[in-house]
Protein backbone atom coordinates (compact mmCIF):
# COMPACT_ATOMS: atom_id res chain seq x y z
CA UNK A 1 0.00 0.00 0.00
CA UNK A 2 1.23 3.48 -0.89
CA UNK A 3 2.28 6.06 1.69
CA UNK A 4 -0.87 7.62 3.10
CA UNK A 5 -1.88 11.19 2.56
CA UNK A 6 -2.32 12.46 6.10
CA UNK A 7 -5.12 14.93 6.76
CA UNK A 8 -5.61 16.52 10.17
CA UNK A 9 -9.39 16.72 10.46
CA UNK A 10 -9.33 18.64 13.75
CA UNK A 11 -12.03 21.29 13.50
CA UNK A 12 -12.48 20.68 9.77
CA UNK A 13 -16.05 21.06 8.53
CA UNK A 14 -17.34 17.83 7.02
CA UNK A 15 -17.96 19.35 3.59
CA UNK A 16 -14.41 20.67 3.41
CA UNK A 17 -12.95 17.36 4.58
CA UNK A 18 -14.93 15.36 2.02
CA UNK A 19 -14.12 17.84 -0.73
CA UNK A 20 -10.40 17.47 -0.01
CA UNK A 21 -10.74 13.69 -0.20
CA UNK A 22 -12.64 13.84 -3.51
CA UNK A 23 -10.15 16.30 -5.02
CA UNK A 24 -7.19 14.19 -3.97
CA UNK A 25 -8.81 11.04 -5.33
CA UNK A 26 -9.04 12.82 -8.69
CA UNK A 27 -5.34 13.60 -8.41
CA UNK A 28 -4.65 9.91 -7.98
CA UNK A 29 -4.24 9.57 -4.22
CA UNK A 30 -5.33 6.08 -3.12
CA UNK A 31 -4.52 6.02 0.59
CA UNK A 32 -5.79 8.50 3.16
CA UNK A 33 -5.14 8.72 6.87
CA UNK A 34 -7.55 11.08 8.61
CA UNK A 35 -6.43 12.14 12.07
CA UNK A 36 -8.53 13.72 14.83
CA UNK A 37 -11.81 12.93 13.17
CA UNK A 38 -14.68 13.78 15.53
CA UNK A 39 -18.12 13.32 14.08
CA UNK A 40 -17.54 14.53 10.52
CA UNK A 41 -20.35 13.10 8.40
CA UNK A 42 -20.46 11.27 5.08
CA UNK A 43 -16.79 10.24 4.96
CA UNK A 44 -16.25 8.21 1.78
CA UNK A 45 -19.74 9.06 0.52
CA UNK A 46 -20.40 7.92 -3.03
CA UNK A 47 -16.74 7.30 -3.88
CA UNK A 48 -16.29 4.56 -6.49
CA UNK A 49 -12.48 4.47 -6.69
CA UNK A 50 -10.47 1.71 -5.06
CA UNK A 51 -8.91 3.62 -2.17
CA UNK A 52 -8.16 3.08 1.51
CA UNK A 53 -9.36 5.60 4.09
CA UNK A 54 -8.09 5.22 7.64
CA UNK A 55 -10.13 7.17 10.17
CA UNK A 56 -8.65 7.95 13.58
CA UNK A 57 -11.29 9.21 16.00
CA UNK A 58 -15.07 9.04 15.94
CA UNK A 59 -16.57 8.71 12.45
CA UNK A 60 -19.76 10.73 12.01
CA UNK A 61 -23.19 9.87 10.57
CA UNK A 62 -23.49 7.96 7.30
CA UNK A 63 -19.90 6.79 7.10
CA UNK A 64 -19.41 5.27 3.63
CA UNK A 65 -22.93 6.09 2.46
CA UNK A 66 -23.53 4.97 -1.17
CA UNK A 67 -19.87 4.00 -1.48
CA UNK A 68 -18.69 1.43 -3.94
CA UNK A 69 -14.91 1.47 -4.20
CA UNK A 70 -13.20 2.39 -0.94
CA UNK A 71 -12.17 0.36 2.04
CA UNK A 72 -12.62 2.34 5.25
CA UNK A 73 -11.00 1.41 8.53
CA UNK A 74 -12.06 3.31 11.66
CA UNK A 75 -9.73 3.26 14.65
CA UNK A 76 -12.34 4.35 17.17
CA UNK A 77 -16.13 4.34 17.31
CA UNK A 78 -18.58 5.18 14.57
CA UNK A 79 -21.88 7.02 15.02
CA UNK A 80 -25.22 6.21 13.35
CA UNK A 81 -25.96 4.94 9.85
CA UNK A 82 -22.59 3.37 9.02
CA UNK A 83 -22.68 1.98 5.46
CA UNK A 84 -26.07 3.48 4.65
CA UNK A 85 -27.10 2.13 1.21
CA UNK A 86 -23.54 1.01 0.65
CA UNK A 87 -22.85 -0.70 -2.67
CA UNK A 88 -19.55 -2.49 -2.22
CA UNK A 89 -16.15 -3.00 -0.54
CA UNK A 90 -15.68 -2.83 3.15
CA UNK A 91 -15.92 -0.79 6.35
CA UNK A 92 -14.05 -2.01 9.44
CA UNK A 93 -14.80 -0.35 12.78
CA UNK A 94 -12.40 -1.01 15.66
CA UNK A 95 -14.96 -0.02 18.24
CA UNK A 96 -18.72 0.28 18.61
CA UNK A 97 -21.20 1.70 16.12
CA UNK A 98 -24.54 3.43 16.54
CA UNK A 99 -28.05 2.84 15.27
CA UNK A 100 -29.17 1.88 11.77
CA UNK A 101 -25.83 0.53 10.51
CA UNK A 102 -26.07 -1.06 7.08
CA UNK A 103 -29.38 0.62 6.33
CA UNK A 104 -30.49 -0.62 2.89
CA UNK A 105 -27.00 -1.96 2.28
CA UNK A 106 -26.78 -3.76 -1.06
CA UNK A 107 -23.21 -4.98 -1.27
CA UNK A 108 -19.87 -5.10 0.50
CA UNK A 109 -18.94 -5.85 4.08
CA UNK A 110 -19.36 -4.17 7.43
CA UNK A 111 -17.10 -5.52 10.18
CA UNK A 112 -17.71 -4.05 13.63
CA UNK A 113 -15.61 -5.06 16.59
CA UNK A 114 -17.96 -4.24 19.47
CA UNK A 115 -21.63 -3.42 20.10
CA UNK A 116 -24.02 -1.86 17.65
CA UNK A 117 -27.25 0.04 18.28
CA UNK A 118 -30.81 -0.42 17.10
CA UNK A 119 -32.15 -1.37 13.62
CA UNK A 120 -28.84 -2.65 12.30
CA UNK A 121 -29.15 -4.13 8.80
CA UNK A 122 -32.63 -2.74 8.30
CA UNK A 123 -33.78 -3.65 4.79
CA UNK A 124 -30.44 -4.80 3.46
CA UNK A 125 -30.80 -6.67 0.21
CA UNK A 126 -29.15 -8.98 -2.31
CA UNK A 127 -28.99 -8.50 -6.06
CA UNK A 128 -27.47 -11.28 -8.16
CA UNK A 129 -23.80 -11.56 -7.14
CA UNK A 130 -24.03 -8.68 -4.67
CA UNK A 131 -24.50 -10.11 -1.18
CA UNK A 132 -23.95 -7.63 1.66
CA UNK A 133 -22.44 -8.96 4.89
CA UNK A 134 -22.57 -7.44 8.38
CA UNK A 135 -20.54 -9.02 11.17
CA UNK A 136 -20.84 -7.59 14.69
CA UNK A 137 -18.44 -8.69 17.43
CA UNK A 138 -20.49 -7.38 20.35
CA UNK A 139 -24.21 -7.20 21.01
CA UNK A 140 -27.02 -5.55 19.10
CA UNK A 141 -30.10 -3.57 20.07
CA UNK A 142 -33.72 -4.14 19.02
CA UNK A 143 -34.83 -4.66 15.41
CA UNK A 144 -31.64 -6.40 14.27
CA UNK A 145 -32.25 -7.34 10.61
CA UNK A 146 -35.63 -5.63 10.47
CA UNK A 147 -37.31 -5.97 7.02
CA UNK A 148 -34.16 -7.73 5.85
CA UNK A 149 -34.53 -8.62 2.19
CA UNK A 150 -31.19 -10.27 1.52
CA UNK A 151 -27.59 -10.66 2.60
CA UNK A 152 -25.91 -12.17 5.62
CA UNK A 153 -25.79 -10.90 9.21
CA UNK A 154 -23.61 -12.44 11.90
CA UNK A 155 -23.73 -11.47 15.58
CA UNK A 156 -21.01 -12.81 17.87
CA UNK A 157 -21.25 -11.37 21.43
CA UNK A 158 -17.55 -11.91 22.10
CA UNK A 159 -16.96 -9.30 24.76
CA UNK A 160 -19.53 -9.90 27.49
CA UNK A 161 -19.91 -12.74 29.89
CA UNK A 162 -23.03 -11.55 31.71
CA UNK A 163 -26.41 -13.06 31.00
CA UNK A 164 -27.89 -10.16 29.05
CA UNK A 165 -29.28 -11.08 25.69
CA UNK A 166 -26.98 -10.98 22.66
CA UNK A 167 -29.63 -9.24 20.66
CA UNK A 168 -32.61 -7.03 21.42
CA UNK A 169 -36.33 -7.45 20.90
CA UNK A 170 -38.17 -7.61 17.55
CA UNK A 171 -35.33 -9.57 16.03
CA UNK A 172 -35.68 -9.71 12.24
CA UNK A 173 -39.26 -8.46 12.28
CA UNK A 174 -40.52 -8.37 8.70
CA UNK A 175 -37.53 -10.29 7.36
CA UNK A 176 -38.22 -11.74 3.95
CA UNK A 177 -34.82 -12.63 2.55
CA UNK A 178 -31.24 -13.41 3.55
CA UNK A 179 -29.93 -15.17 6.62
CA UNK A 180 -28.96 -14.25 10.20
CA UNK A 181 -26.48 -16.20 12.32
CA UNK A 182 -26.31 -15.44 16.03
CA UNK A 183 -23.67 -17.08 18.19
CA UNK A 184 -25.37 -18.88 21.07
CA UNK A 185 -29.05 -19.33 21.84
CA UNK A 186 -31.80 -16.83 21.15
CA UNK A 187 -35.02 -16.63 23.14
CA UNK A 188 -37.82 -17.29 20.60
CA UNK A 189 -39.88 -14.61 22.38
CA UNK A 190 -37.78 -11.82 20.87
CA UNK A 191 -37.94 -13.15 17.31
CA UNK A 192 -40.19 -11.46 14.80
CA UNK A 193 -43.15 -13.44 13.57
CA UNK A 194 -41.72 -13.53 10.08
CA UNK A 195 -38.63 -15.62 10.91
CA UNK A 196 -38.01 -19.19 11.86
CA UNK A 197 -35.03 -20.94 13.35
CA UNK A 198 -33.54 -23.67 11.17
CA UNK A 199 -30.69 -26.09 11.58
CA UNK A 200 -27.14 -24.95 10.86
CA UNK A 201 -25.86 -27.11 8.04
CA UNK A 202 -22.40 -28.06 6.90
CA UNK A 203 -22.66 -25.41 4.17
CA UNK A 204 -23.53 -22.80 6.80
CA UNK A 205 -20.49 -23.75 8.84
CA UNK A 206 -18.24 -23.50 5.80
CA UNK A 207 -19.71 -20.11 4.95
CA UNK A 208 -19.32 -18.84 8.53
CA UNK A 209 -15.76 -20.10 8.74
CA UNK A 210 -14.81 -18.22 5.60
CA UNK A 211 -16.52 -14.99 6.71
CA UNK A 212 -15.11 -15.13 10.22
CA UNK A 213 -11.61 -15.92 9.03
CA UNK A 214 -11.62 -12.61 7.23
CA UNK A 215 -13.24 -10.89 10.23
CA UNK A 216 -10.58 -12.18 12.63
CA UNK A 217 -7.86 -11.11 10.21
CA UNK A 218 -9.29 -7.57 10.10
CA UNK A 219 -9.08 -7.45 13.88
CA UNK A 220 -5.81 -9.35 14.18
CA UNK A 221 -4.51 -7.01 16.88
CA UNK A 222 -7.18 -8.35 19.27
CA UNK A 223 -6.05 -11.96 18.78
CA UNK A 224 -9.54 -13.29 18.20
CA UNK A 225 -9.65 -17.06 18.31
CA UNK A 226 -11.51 -18.26 15.23
CA UNK A 227 -11.65 -21.81 16.47
CA UNK A 228 -13.04 -20.74 19.83
CA UNK A 229 -15.62 -18.48 18.20
CA UNK A 230 -16.86 -21.33 16.03
CA UNK A 231 -17.12 -23.77 18.92
CA UNK A 232 -20.22 -22.12 20.32
CA UNK A 233 -23.25 -23.27 18.29
CA UNK A 234 -24.93 -20.62 16.16
CA UNK A 235 -28.64 -19.90 15.88
CA UNK A 236 -29.70 -19.56 12.25
CA UNK A 237 -32.72 -17.51 11.28
CA UNK A 238 -34.38 -17.37 7.91
CA UNK A 239 -37.67 -15.87 6.77
CA UNK A 240 -40.71 -18.10 6.75
CA UNK A 241 -42.22 -16.20 3.85
CA UNK A 242 -40.81 -14.20 0.97
CA UNK A 243 -43.77 -11.82 1.20
CA UNK A 244 -44.79 -11.60 4.86
CA UNK A 245 -47.15 -8.67 4.34
CA UNK A 246 -48.60 -9.85 1.03
CA UNK A 247 -51.97 -10.47 2.59
CA UNK A 248 -51.99 -7.16 4.41
CA UNK A 249 -51.57 -5.11 1.26
CA UNK A 250 -53.42 -7.30 -1.24
CA UNK A 251 -56.94 -6.28 -2.07
Amino acid at each position, binding site marked *: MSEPLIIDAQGLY*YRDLNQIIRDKVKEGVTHFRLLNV*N*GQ*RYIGAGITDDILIEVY*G*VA*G*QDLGIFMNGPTIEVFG*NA*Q*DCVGNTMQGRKIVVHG*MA*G*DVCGYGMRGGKLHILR*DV*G*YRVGIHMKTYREMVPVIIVGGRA*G*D*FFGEYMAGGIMVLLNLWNDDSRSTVGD*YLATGMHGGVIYIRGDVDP*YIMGKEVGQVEVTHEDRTLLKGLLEEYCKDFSSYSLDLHGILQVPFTKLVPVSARPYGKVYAY
Partner: protein
Amino acid sequence: MSWPREISGCGLAGIISRKRELIPGEEIVTSIVHQKERGNQLGAGFAGYGIYPQFPDYYALHIMYDGPYVREDTEEYIKGRFVVEHFEGIPTRRVPSIMDRPIFYRYFVVPVELPGEEISPDDYVMAAVMEINEKIDGAFVISSGKNMGAFKGVGGPEEIAEFFRIDEYEAHQWIAHTRFPTNTPGWWGGAHPFTLLDWAVVHNGEISSYGINKRYLEMFGYKCTLMTDTEVVAYLVDLLVRRHRLPLRLAADVLAAPFWKDIDRMGSRENGLFTALRMVYGSALLNGPFAVLVAWNGGMMGLNDRIKLRPLVAAIDGDRVYMASEESAIRAVCPHPTRVWAPKAGDPVIVPFDDARDAWEVKGCQSL
Protein backbone atom coordinates in the same frame (compact mmCIF):
# COMPACT_ATOMS: atom_id res chain seq x y z
CA MET B 1 -40.37 20.44 -8.80
CA SER B 2 -37.57 20.02 -6.33
CA TRP B 3 -35.90 22.24 -3.79
CA PRO B 4 -32.87 21.85 -1.57
CA ARG B 5 -33.81 19.98 1.54
CA GLU B 6 -31.66 19.43 4.58
CA ILE B 7 -32.65 16.31 6.43
CA SER B 8 -31.72 16.42 10.06
CA GLY B 9 -32.96 16.17 13.61
CA CYS B 10 -32.52 18.22 16.73
CA GLY B 11 -29.40 17.92 18.84
CA LEU B 12 -29.05 17.61 22.62
CA ALA B 13 -26.16 18.04 25.01
CA GLY B 14 -25.87 17.84 28.79
CA ILE B 15 -22.99 18.03 31.26
CA ILE B 16 -23.23 17.50 35.00
CA SER B 17 -20.63 17.68 37.76
CA ARG B 18 -21.84 15.33 40.46
CA LYS B 19 -19.77 17.15 43.07
CA ARG B 20 -21.31 20.44 41.93
CA GLU B 21 -18.08 21.82 40.59
CA LEU B 22 -18.64 24.79 38.34
CA ILE B 23 -18.65 24.06 34.63
CA PRO B 24 -17.88 27.09 32.45
CA GLY B 25 -20.58 27.99 29.93
CA GLU B 26 -18.08 27.60 27.07
CA GLU B 27 -18.11 23.85 27.59
CA ILE B 28 -21.77 23.31 26.92
CA VAL B 29 -21.60 25.79 24.04
CA THR B 30 -18.76 23.82 22.45
CA SER B 31 -20.65 20.56 22.88
CA ILE B 32 -23.93 21.77 21.37
CA VAL B 33 -22.30 23.80 18.60
CA HIS B 34 -20.44 20.65 17.60
CA GLN B 35 -23.84 19.25 16.66
CA LYS B 36 -25.12 22.35 14.90
CA GLU B 37 -25.55 20.23 11.78
CA ARG B 38 -28.53 18.67 13.56
CA GLY B 39 -30.34 22.00 13.72
CA ASN B 40 -31.21 24.62 11.13
CA GLN B 41 -30.62 27.91 12.97
CA LEU B 42 -34.31 28.17 13.91
CA GLY B 43 -33.91 27.57 17.61
CA ALA B 44 -31.39 26.89 20.33
CA GLY B 45 -31.20 27.19 24.08
CA PHE B 46 -29.49 26.44 27.34
CA ALA B 47 -30.37 25.81 30.97
CA GLY B 48 -27.82 26.21 33.75
CA TYR B 49 -28.11 25.16 37.39
CA GLY B 50 -26.32 26.90 40.25
CA ILE B 51 -25.93 30.06 38.19
CA TYR B 52 -27.49 32.40 40.76
CA PRO B 53 -25.60 31.69 44.02
CA GLN B 54 -26.37 35.24 45.20
CA PHE B 55 -30.12 34.42 45.23
CA PRO B 56 -30.27 30.66 45.88
CA ASP B 57 -33.61 30.75 47.71
CA TYR B 58 -35.52 32.99 45.33
CA TYR B 59 -37.50 31.80 42.35
CA ALA B 60 -35.69 33.19 39.32
CA LEU B 61 -38.36 34.20 36.81
CA HIS B 62 -36.89 34.60 33.33
CA ILE B 63 -39.52 36.41 31.31
CA MET B 64 -39.70 37.16 27.60
CA TYR B 65 -41.64 40.22 26.43
CA ASP B 66 -42.81 41.24 22.99
CA GLY B 67 -42.41 44.89 23.92
CA PRO B 68 -42.18 47.46 26.74
CA TYR B 69 -45.92 47.82 27.42
CA VAL B 70 -46.47 44.19 28.15
CA ARG B 71 -43.52 44.36 30.49
CA GLU B 72 -45.25 47.06 32.52
CA ASP B 73 -48.45 45.00 32.73
CA THR B 74 -46.57 41.89 33.74
CA GLU B 75 -44.54 43.69 36.39
CA GLU B 76 -47.78 44.99 37.90
CA TYR B 77 -48.98 41.40 38.06
CA ILE B 78 -45.73 40.16 39.62
CA LYS B 79 -45.64 42.94 42.22
CA GLY B 80 -49.13 41.99 43.29
CA ARG B 81 -48.11 38.41 44.00
CA PHE B 82 -44.42 38.34 44.84
CA VAL B 83 -41.77 40.11 46.85
CA VAL B 84 -39.19 41.07 44.25
CA GLU B 85 -35.76 40.91 45.84
CA HIS B 86 -33.99 41.96 42.69
CA PHE B 87 -34.72 42.38 39.01
CA GLU B 88 -32.76 43.30 35.91
CA GLY B 89 -32.63 42.94 32.16
CA ILE B 90 -31.02 39.67 31.20
CA PRO B 91 -27.65 40.71 29.78
CA THR B 92 -27.43 40.18 26.05
CA ARG B 93 -24.97 40.96 23.29
CA ARG B 94 -25.72 42.34 19.87
CA VAL B 95 -25.60 39.51 17.35
CA PRO B 96 -25.77 40.66 13.70
CA SER B 97 -27.91 37.74 12.55
CA ILE B 98 -30.48 38.20 15.32
CA MET B 99 -32.61 41.05 14.03
CA ASP B 100 -36.00 40.65 15.63
CA ARG B 101 -35.57 39.93 19.30
CA PRO B 102 -37.90 40.04 22.27
CA ILE B 103 -36.96 41.73 25.55
CA PHE B 104 -35.72 39.54 28.42
CA TYR B 105 -35.91 40.31 32.14
CA ARG B 106 -35.26 38.26 35.24
CA TYR B 107 -36.89 38.65 38.65
CA PHE B 108 -35.74 37.01 41.88
CA VAL B 109 -38.92 36.57 43.86
CA VAL B 110 -40.74 34.85 46.72
CA PRO B 111 -44.52 34.65 47.17
CA VAL B 112 -45.95 37.77 48.82
CA GLU B 113 -47.18 36.01 51.88
CA LEU B 114 -47.27 32.40 52.93
CA PRO B 115 -50.04 31.30 50.70
CA GLY B 116 -51.81 29.18 53.28
CA GLU B 117 -51.94 25.50 53.86
CA GLU B 118 -53.68 24.41 50.69
CA ILE B 119 -51.07 25.72 48.32
CA SER B 120 -47.32 25.24 48.43
CA PRO B 121 -44.95 27.96 47.25
CA ASP B 122 -44.13 25.80 44.21
CA ASP B 123 -47.80 25.50 43.30
CA TYR B 124 -48.21 29.23 43.81
CA VAL B 125 -45.36 29.94 41.40
CA MET B 126 -46.68 27.38 38.94
CA ALA B 127 -50.10 29.03 38.94
CA ALA B 128 -48.53 32.44 38.31
CA VAL B 129 -46.44 31.04 35.44
CA MET B 130 -49.53 29.54 33.83
CA GLU B 131 -51.50 32.74 34.29
CA ILE B 132 -48.82 34.96 32.76
CA ASN B 133 -48.33 32.61 29.80
CA GLU B 134 -52.03 32.26 29.15
CA LYS B 135 -53.47 35.66 29.98
CA ILE B 136 -50.84 38.32 29.43
CA ASP B 137 -50.55 38.70 25.69
CA GLY B 138 -46.90 38.88 24.65
CA ALA B 139 -45.32 37.74 27.95
CA PHE B 140 -43.92 34.28 28.49
CA VAL B 141 -42.10 32.84 31.48
CA ILE B 142 -39.04 31.08 30.10
CA SER B 143 -37.99 29.60 33.45
CA SER B 144 -39.08 29.81 37.05
CA GLY B 145 -36.82 27.64 39.23
CA LYS B 146 -34.50 28.49 42.07
CA ASN B 147 -30.84 29.04 41.30
CA MET B 148 -31.31 28.07 37.66
CA GLY B 149 -32.28 29.71 34.44
CA ALA B 150 -33.14 29.01 30.83
CA PHE B 151 -31.92 31.04 27.86
CA LYS B 152 -33.41 30.33 24.48
CA GLY B 153 -34.39 31.84 21.17
CA VAL B 154 -34.43 31.71 17.41
CA GLY B 155 -30.96 31.22 15.98
CA GLY B 156 -28.19 28.68 15.93
CA PRO B 157 -26.64 27.51 19.21
CA GLU B 158 -23.56 29.68 18.71
CA GLU B 159 -25.74 32.74 18.07
CA ILE B 160 -28.02 32.15 21.05
CA ALA B 161 -24.98 31.49 23.27
CA GLU B 162 -23.42 34.74 22.10
CA PHE B 163 -26.70 36.62 22.49
CA PHE B 164 -27.27 35.48 26.08
CA ARG B 165 -23.57 35.62 27.01
CA ILE B 166 -23.55 31.99 28.12
CA ASP B 167 -19.75 32.19 28.35
CA GLU B 168 -20.18 34.49 31.38
CA TYR B 169 -22.00 31.85 33.47
CA GLU B 170 -20.77 28.83 35.37
CA ALA B 171 -23.09 26.01 36.39
CA HIS B 172 -23.15 22.67 38.22
CA GLN B 173 -24.93 21.26 35.25
CA TRP B 174 -25.98 22.41 31.81
CA ILE B 175 -28.34 21.15 29.18
CA ALA B 176 -28.54 22.55 25.68
CA HIS B 177 -30.43 22.16 22.44
CA THR B 178 -30.13 22.94 18.77
CA ARG B 179 -33.43 22.88 16.98
CA PHE B 180 -34.76 21.67 13.67
CA PRO B 181 -38.44 22.60 13.91
CA THR B 182 -40.64 20.21 11.98
CA ASN B 183 -44.29 20.46 12.95
CA THR B 184 -44.43 23.72 14.88
CA PRO B 185 -43.23 27.27 14.34
CA GLY B 186 -39.65 28.34 14.94
CA TRP B 187 -40.35 31.16 17.39
CA TRP B 188 -38.58 32.34 20.53
CA GLY B 189 -40.94 30.65 22.97
CA GLY B 190 -40.85 27.42 20.98
CA ALA B 191 -37.09 26.99 21.36
CA HIS B 192 -35.91 24.49 23.97
CA PRO B 193 -35.47 24.05 26.92
CA PHE B 194 -39.04 23.92 28.16
CA THR B 195 -39.26 24.50 31.86
CA LEU B 196 -41.42 24.73 34.92
CA LEU B 197 -40.04 25.53 38.36
CA ASP B 198 -36.59 23.95 38.29
CA TRP B 199 -37.45 21.30 35.66
CA ALA B 200 -35.94 21.88 32.24
CA VAL B 201 -36.33 19.62 29.24
CA VAL B 202 -34.59 19.47 25.87
CA HIS B 203 -35.95 17.07 23.30
CA ASN B 204 -35.15 15.55 19.94
CA GLY B 205 -38.13 13.95 18.22
CA GLU B 206 -41.82 14.52 18.23
CA ILE B 207 -44.49 13.77 20.78
CA SER B 208 -47.35 12.33 18.74
CA SER B 209 -49.45 12.04 21.90
CA TYR B 210 -49.25 15.83 22.45
CA GLY B 211 -53.03 16.32 22.23
CA ILE B 212 -53.80 13.60 24.77
CA ASN B 213 -51.02 14.75 27.10
CA LYS B 214 -52.11 18.39 26.83
CA ARG B 215 -55.74 17.68 27.70
CA TYR B 216 -54.66 15.46 30.58
CA LEU B 217 -52.38 18.17 31.96
CA GLU B 218 -55.15 20.77 31.71
CA MET B 219 -57.06 18.84 34.38
CA PHE B 220 -54.22 19.61 36.78
CA GLY B 221 -53.91 23.30 35.93
CA TYR B 222 -51.17 23.13 33.30
CA LYS B 223 -51.74 25.34 30.26
CA CYS B 224 -49.81 24.53 27.12
CA THR B 225 -49.21 27.91 25.50
CA LEU B 226 -45.88 27.57 23.73
CA MET B 227 -47.05 25.76 20.58
CA THR B 228 -44.45 22.99 20.80
CA ASP B 229 -44.89 19.36 21.80
CA THR B 230 -41.96 19.27 24.23
CA GLU B 231 -43.79 21.58 26.62
CA VAL B 232 -45.88 18.63 27.83
CA VAL B 233 -42.80 16.71 28.91
CA ALA B 234 -41.75 19.39 31.39
CA TYR B 235 -45.26 19.58 32.86
CA LEU B 236 -45.69 15.80 33.01
CA VAL B 237 -42.46 15.41 34.96
CA ASP B 238 -43.60 18.15 37.34
CA LEU B 239 -46.97 16.48 37.80
CA LEU B 240 -45.65 12.96 38.28
CA VAL B 241 -42.59 13.64 40.40
CA ARG B 242 -43.23 16.85 42.32
CA ARG B 243 -46.98 16.67 42.78
CA HIS B 244 -47.75 12.95 42.69
CA ARG B 245 -44.43 12.05 44.29
CA LEU B 246 -43.62 9.16 42.01
CA PRO B 247 -39.99 8.10 42.15
CA LEU B 248 -38.25 9.46 39.06
CA ARG B 249 -37.63 5.94 37.79
CA LEU B 250 -41.35 5.21 37.85
CA ALA B 251 -42.11 8.54 36.21
CA ALA B 252 -39.80 7.44 33.40
CA ASP B 253 -41.75 4.18 33.26
CA VAL B 254 -44.93 6.21 32.82
CA LEU B 255 -43.50 8.38 30.04
CA ALA B 256 -41.84 5.45 28.24
CA ALA B 257 -44.06 2.67 29.56
CA PRO B 258 -43.15 -0.96 28.98
CA PHE B 259 -45.23 -2.64 26.28
CA TRP B 260 -48.19 -4.72 27.45
CA LYS B 261 -46.62 -7.81 25.93
CA ASP B 262 -43.63 -7.35 28.24
CA ILE B 263 -45.78 -6.53 31.26
CA ASP B 264 -47.61 -9.82 30.64
CA ARG B 265 -44.33 -11.68 31.18
CA MET B 266 -43.43 -9.95 34.46
CA GLY B 267 -43.72 -11.56 37.87
CA SER B 268 -46.90 -10.78 39.79
CA ARG B 269 -45.57 -7.83 41.83
CA GLU B 270 -44.04 -6.07 38.86
CA ASN B 271 -46.98 -7.00 36.72
CA GLY B 272 -49.32 -5.36 39.23
CA LEU B 273 -47.18 -2.24 39.48
CA PHE B 274 -46.80 -1.67 35.75
CA THR B 275 -50.39 -2.55 35.00
CA ALA B 276 -51.47 0.04 37.58
CA LEU B 277 -49.07 2.66 36.21
CA ARG B 278 -50.30 2.19 32.66
CA MET B 279 -53.93 2.27 33.71
CA VAL B 280 -53.65 5.30 35.99
CA TYR B 281 -51.27 7.23 33.77
CA GLY B 282 -52.24 6.11 30.28
CA SER B 283 -52.72 9.73 29.25
CA ALA B 284 -49.22 10.60 30.40
CA LEU B 285 -47.58 8.10 28.06
CA LEU B 286 -45.36 9.82 25.50
CA ASN B 287 -45.91 8.33 22.10
CA GLY B 288 -43.64 8.99 19.16
CA PRO B 289 -39.89 9.20 18.80
CA PHE B 290 -37.93 11.01 21.47
CA ALA B 291 -34.65 11.47 23.22
CA VAL B 292 -34.93 13.90 26.11
CA LEU B 293 -32.66 15.32 28.77
CA VAL B 294 -34.47 16.37 31.93
CA ALA B 295 -32.57 18.56 34.40
CA TRP B 296 -33.57 19.76 37.85
CA ASN B 297 -31.85 20.90 41.03
CA GLY B 298 -31.21 17.27 42.01
CA GLY B 299 -29.51 16.09 38.83
CA MET B 300 -30.08 15.04 35.23
CA MET B 301 -31.94 12.27 33.45
CA GLY B 302 -31.61 11.04 29.89
CA LEU B 303 -34.51 9.05 28.43
CA ASN B 304 -35.35 7.53 25.06
CA ASP B 305 -38.63 6.35 23.64
CA ARG B 306 -39.27 2.63 23.96
CA ILE B 307 -37.83 1.64 20.63
CA LYS B 308 -35.02 4.17 20.42
CA LEU B 309 -36.14 6.19 17.47
CA ARG B 310 -33.75 9.00 18.35
CA PRO B 311 -30.07 8.78 19.30
CA LEU B 312 -28.62 9.28 22.76
CA VAL B 313 -25.07 8.65 23.92
CA ALA B 314 -23.72 8.90 27.47
CA ALA B 315 -20.20 9.06 28.86
CA ILE B 316 -18.43 9.34 32.19
CA ASP B 317 -15.15 10.98 33.03
CA GLY B 318 -14.41 11.14 36.75
CA ASP B 319 -16.91 13.45 38.42
CA ARG B 320 -18.54 14.46 35.14
CA VAL B 321 -21.30 12.73 33.24
CA TYR B 322 -22.11 13.73 29.67
CA MET B 323 -25.07 13.00 27.44
CA ALA B 324 -25.59 14.03 23.83
CA SER B 325 -27.16 13.06 20.55
CA GLU B 326 -23.76 12.22 19.13
CA GLU B 327 -20.63 10.83 20.74
CA SER B 328 -18.53 13.45 18.96
CA ALA B 329 -20.31 16.22 20.87
CA ILE B 330 -19.13 14.63 24.12
CA ARG B 331 -15.59 14.13 22.86
CA ALA B 332 -15.49 17.75 21.72
CA VAL B 333 -15.31 18.70 25.42
CA CYS B 334 -14.10 15.41 26.92
CA PRO B 335 -11.73 13.70 24.48
CA HIS B 336 -11.04 10.60 26.58
CA PRO B 337 -14.00 9.56 28.73
CA THR B 338 -13.49 6.44 30.81
CA ARG B 339 -16.74 4.95 29.55
CA VAL B 340 -19.02 5.65 26.59
CA TRP B 341 -22.29 3.87 25.99
CA ALA B 342 -25.58 4.11 24.15
CA PRO B 343 -28.45 4.02 26.68
CA LYS B 344 -31.11 1.42 26.09
CA ALA B 345 -34.51 2.40 24.77
CA GLY B 346 -36.98 3.40 27.47
CA ASP B 347 -34.42 2.85 30.22
CA PRO B 348 -33.56 6.13 31.96
CA VAL B 349 -30.03 7.23 32.79
CA ILE B 350 -30.44 9.07 36.11
CA VAL B 351 -27.50 11.09 37.38
CA PRO B 352 -28.09 12.73 40.77
CA PHE B 353 -25.71 15.21 42.32
CA ASP B 354 -23.67 13.51 45.07
CA ASP B 355 -25.41 15.59 47.74
CA ALA B 356 -28.83 14.63 46.37
CA ARG B 357 -28.25 10.91 46.00
CA ASP B 358 -30.47 9.90 48.89
CA ALA B 359 -33.39 11.62 47.26
CA TRP B 360 -32.77 10.70 43.65
CA GLU B 361 -30.55 7.67 43.27
CA VAL B 362 -32.43 4.80 41.79
CA LYS B 363 -31.76 1.13 41.99
CA GLY B 364 -32.30 -0.94 38.89
CA CYS B 365 -31.38 1.95 36.65
CA GLN B 366 -28.61 1.93 34.08
CA SER B 367 -25.59 1.89 36.34
CA LEU B 368 -23.07 4.67 36.13
